[in-house]
């Protein structure tokens, strides 16, 4: 999630947020990667049922370009269109300067979202 959140930094999460509302586009969420304590901080870029793709580094949702002011590093990603399944959201990190193959991103079940960072 560089440069928004730094690797290894400590963040506090508001876990009750998932009870009151579903995650929205551009929200940063904590996704439970494994067990009770291993989390990933990612940004929601597409919601269930939407079609997502990357073209020349630009995010497209249902064919429309989405502005992402939080992406500060140059990006040249290309990803073929794919539909987000029901009960899931599509999450990507803010650090798009790294190779797409090395970046942890994709469709995550809403059940795995445990909260949002407090700051």
């Amino acid at each position, binding site marked *: 999630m560089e440069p928004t959140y730094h690797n290894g930094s400590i963040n506090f999460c508001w876990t009750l947020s998932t009870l009151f509302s579903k995650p929205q586009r551009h929200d940063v969420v904590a*996704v*439970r*990667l*494994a*067990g*009770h*304590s*291993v989390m*990933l901080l*990612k940004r929601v870029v597409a919601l269930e049922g939407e079609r997502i793709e990357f073209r020349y580094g630009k995010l497209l949702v249902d064919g429309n370009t989405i502005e992402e002011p939080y992406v500060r590093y140059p990006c040249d990603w290309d*990803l073929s269109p*794919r539909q987000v399944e029901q009960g*899931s959201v599509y*999450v990507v990190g803010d650090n798009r300067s790294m190779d797409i193959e090395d970046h*942890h*991103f*994709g*469709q*995550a*079940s809403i059940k*795995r979202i445990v909260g949002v960072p407090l700051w």
Partner: protein
Amino acid sequence: MVKTISQGQTRSSIQTSGQDNLSRPTSRQIGQGGRTPPRSGLSLLAAVKKHPAIAVLLFILGVLTVLILLPSEEKKVRKQFKGLSNVVSKEPGENVFTTARKAKEIVPLFDENCELITPADSVSAYFSRGEITSYVIRGRTQFSDLSLTFVDLSITFPEPGTAKVVLTAKLKGKIANGDRLDETREVKSTLKKIKGKWLFAAFEVVEVLKK
């Protein structure tokens, strides 16, 4: 029956009726000098009767002993994961004897065929013990040091002889070319109890982020 003893009578003159009582000390004898020690079993029984707390304490000690000496099925399953962690992990500068010993120890951990599912790599296949051993040996040679740990184990027994485990696997190591590996994954594993031993029958790496 003990005859009455008058003052000055010697010990040899004590007469009892019945053969069984010949060796049993009389109350008088015990009182005279305590030459015959009281039986420990009887005294313990007496103590327990007198103090019920001792009985409770003994019962707790017994239960603890059974628990320690006879590990539960869950402990046996955990031990199996510890064993796998030990054989996969590698210390820097590991000698050939340790490598050979660990290679030998891999085989008895697995069922004859173990299913491996990694959706991210589109792998879903059964591997024999021999294949698993050769993959592990080959994999270990790529690293100068390697550590595989399993944490957050959640163990269930859906049916007799089958254990389902959801856990966090942490793989850390230094590749021979100097790059570092630090991967954490949620893994689902199935173990089968065969001839009294829990053996790994399946591993599935949970795909949290599906591209």
